[in-house]
C-alpha cells in the first residue's frame, strides 16, 4: 500500500527554461559586438600603469606650479581657519592656505576658491653607514580651488590628498614605505602634460600602499574616473581592489605573478570589464576548498567578467612585472613648501 502511495507522488517536472528571445523584450544591456576583438591584455596593462600614476604627487605638483605663477596679492595666503560664506570651516590651525577670487589682469592667472596644505619632512644620517640615512615626509592638500588663465585650467583641485614616505638607505640595506590617498578631482595642465596618461585629469578615491627595497608589496583600492575615455580611447574608469606581493620578500605561499583581488575598467557605455585574480580575502572564497581550482593558480592570469557575468575561457594575463621597478616614488625634497619659499 505504501509503495502504491509513493508511486503516485511523482513531483511536477521543473518548468522548461524560457528563451529570453521568445519574451519579445529587448536586452537593454547587450554585450558589445566586438568583445572578442578587444585586446584586454593591453587594456589592463595600461589600466595598471595608469593606476600607479594616481597619487598625491600629482595634485601637489599642480599646487606648487600654480602658486609659483601667482602675482603680488593674488592669491592671498591665510593662516588659521576661516569660515566661508556657507558657514563651513576651511583650513586648519597648522599649515597655510591660499583663498581668493582674484586675477591681477587678463594676462595673469586667476585664482578662485582655496587650497590648504601642510607638510612635515626630516632627513638625517649617512647612507653609507650601517645606521643609514632616514627620510620621513608627509603632506596633505585640502581644497576646492581653480587656477587658470587665458589658455585654460592650470590646476583644479577639489577634495583631499595626502601621502607619507619613509625611506631608509643604509650600507647594504634599503627600505621604502609609501602610502597615498587621493579623494579628489584633479585636472589642469600644471599637473598633466600632453604626454600624461590622463591629460584630462580624473576624479578618484584611490588608496595605494607600496613597500620596496626589502619587501615588495603593493596594495591598491578605489576608483579612478577619467571624465572621458582616456584609456585606449574607449574606457573612462578604472576600479581596483588588489594586493600584489612582489618577488622581493615573497614567502613560499605567496604569488608574485598576480595579485589577489581584481581590477576593472568601464567603457563609455558604462559596461564594466573586470579581471578577477586570486581571492582577495578569506571570505571571498565561497567554499572550502576553493571550488575554482583553475582560477586559483598562480599564473598571472585572471578571469574576465563583463557586467559581473563570467566570460568562460576568457582569461586575461596582466603584466605586473614592471610595478616594483617603475613605481614612481617621491623624493622627500618634494615635500618642502614652507612660507619662506613663497
Amino acid at each position, binding site marked *: 500500500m505504501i509503495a502504491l502511495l509513493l508511486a503516485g507522488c511523482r513531483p511536477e517536472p521543473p518548468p522548461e527554461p524560457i528563451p529570453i528571445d521568445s519574451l519579445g523584450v529587448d536586452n537593454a544591456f547587450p554585450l558589445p559586438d566586438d568583445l572578442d576583438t578587444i585586446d584586454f591584455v593591453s587594456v589592463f596593462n595600461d589600466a595598471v600603469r595608469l593606476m600607479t600614476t594616481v597619487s598625491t604627487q600629482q595634485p601637489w605638483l599642480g599646487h606648487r606650479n600654480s602658486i609659483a605663477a601667482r602675482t603680488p596679492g593674488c592669491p592671498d*595666503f591665510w593662516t588659521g581657519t576661516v*569660515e566661508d560664506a556657507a558657514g563651513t570651516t576651511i583650513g586648519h590651525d597648522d599649515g597655510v592656505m591660499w583663498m581668493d577670487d*582674484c586675477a591681477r589682469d587678463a594676462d595673469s592667472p586667476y585664482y578662485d576658491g582655496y587650497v590648504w596644505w601642510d607638510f612635515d619632512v*626630516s632627513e638625517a644620517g649617512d647612507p653609507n653607514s650601517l645606521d643609514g640615512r632616514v627620510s620621513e615626509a608627509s603632506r596633505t592638500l585640502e581644497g576646492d580651488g581653480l587656477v587658470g588663465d587665458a589658455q585654460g585650467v592650470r590646476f583644479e583641485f577639489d577634495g583631499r590628498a595626502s601621502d607619507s614616505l619613509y625611506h631608509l638607505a643604509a650600507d647594504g640595506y634599503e627600505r621604502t614605505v609609501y602610502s597615498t590617498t587621493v579623494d579628489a578631482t584633479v585636472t589642469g595642465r600644471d599637473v598633466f602634460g600632453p604626454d600624461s596618461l590622463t591629460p584630462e585629469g580624473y576624479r578618484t578615491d584611490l588608496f595605494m600602499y607600496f613597500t620596496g627595497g626589502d619587501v615588495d608589496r603593493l596594495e591598491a583600492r578605489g576608483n579612478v574616473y577619467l571624465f572621458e575615455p582616456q584609456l585606449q580611447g574607449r574606457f573612462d574608469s578604472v576600479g581596483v581592489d588588489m594586493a600584489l606581493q612582489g618577488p622581493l620578500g615573497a614567502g613560499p605561499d605567496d604569488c608574485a605573478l598576480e595579485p589577489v583581488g581584481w581590477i576593472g575598467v568601464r567603457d563609455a557605455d558604462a559596461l564594466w570589464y573586470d579581471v578577477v585574480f586570486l581571492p582577495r580575502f578569506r571570505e571571498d572564497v565561497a567554499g572550502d576548498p576553493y571550488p575554482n581550482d583553475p582560477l586559483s593558480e598562480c599564473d598571472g592570469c585572471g578571469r574576465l567578467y563583463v557586467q559581473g557575468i563570467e566570460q568562460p575561457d576568457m582569461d586575461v594575463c596582466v603584466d605586473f612585472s614592471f610595478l616594483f621597478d617603475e613605481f614612481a616614488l617621491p623624493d622627500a625634497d618634494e615635500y618642502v613648501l*614652507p612660507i*619662506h619659499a613663497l
Partner: protein
Amino acid sequence: MRSLVPLLWAAACTPPGPQQTTPVPTDSDTSEPKILPIDTAPFIPIDSSADGPPDLVPGHFVYMSQSGVWNLSSASAPNTMTGSLQITEYVDTLDTALPEYECYVTYALTGEAVGNHTCTDCNFVFDVEFYVDDGDPAACHDPDAPPSGAVWQMGWSDPDGTIYLNYYGTDVWLPWYPGTKSAAVIDFAWSATLAIEVLDTGDMQ
C-alpha cells in the same frame, strides 16, 4: 480501510512547501525600458559672471617679522658665530605704547662651522643652535619658528646676500633670510604677511 485510501492518497500527494503563490503581475508596458541616463560628458564649469573676479580682500592680517644678527669670528672664513634672532607677529596694527603680540620670541644663537656640506652657493655654513631667551615659538603663526634647542644648518652666500637654510636636513637649501654683511657682522631680516580671520568675541572696547 478502503474508505481511508483516497484520504491517505490525497494527504500523501500534497506537494511540500507552498503551492499557492501570489500571482505575478504581467508587465503590459511594451515601450522601451526606462533607464536613467548616464551623463558621460565631461563637466566644464562656466563662469557666468560678466565681471572679473572680485578680488576678495581679507579683513585682517598677521604681520610676521624675523630679524637678527650674526657676529662672525672672522670676516672671511669664520669658525664660530654668536648672534640673536627676534620673531614678532601681530594682527593688523600694533599699539607701540602697549604692544600686543601674537608671538614675540627672542633667541640667542651660536654657530659652529660645518666643513662638509652641500650648499653650493654658500661661502660658509654653520650648525646654528637656537636658545629661546623669551617667548613661546609655538604661539607663532610661522610653523617654522625654531623651537628652543633646535640645530639648523644655515649658510651665508655673499653673491646672493642671503642666509640659506638646509631645510630639516633634506639638502634642499632654501633662501631663508636676506641680509647684509659688513666685515664680520651679518644683519638679516625677513617679513611676510598672512591673512587671518579674527573671530568677533563680542567684547566692547
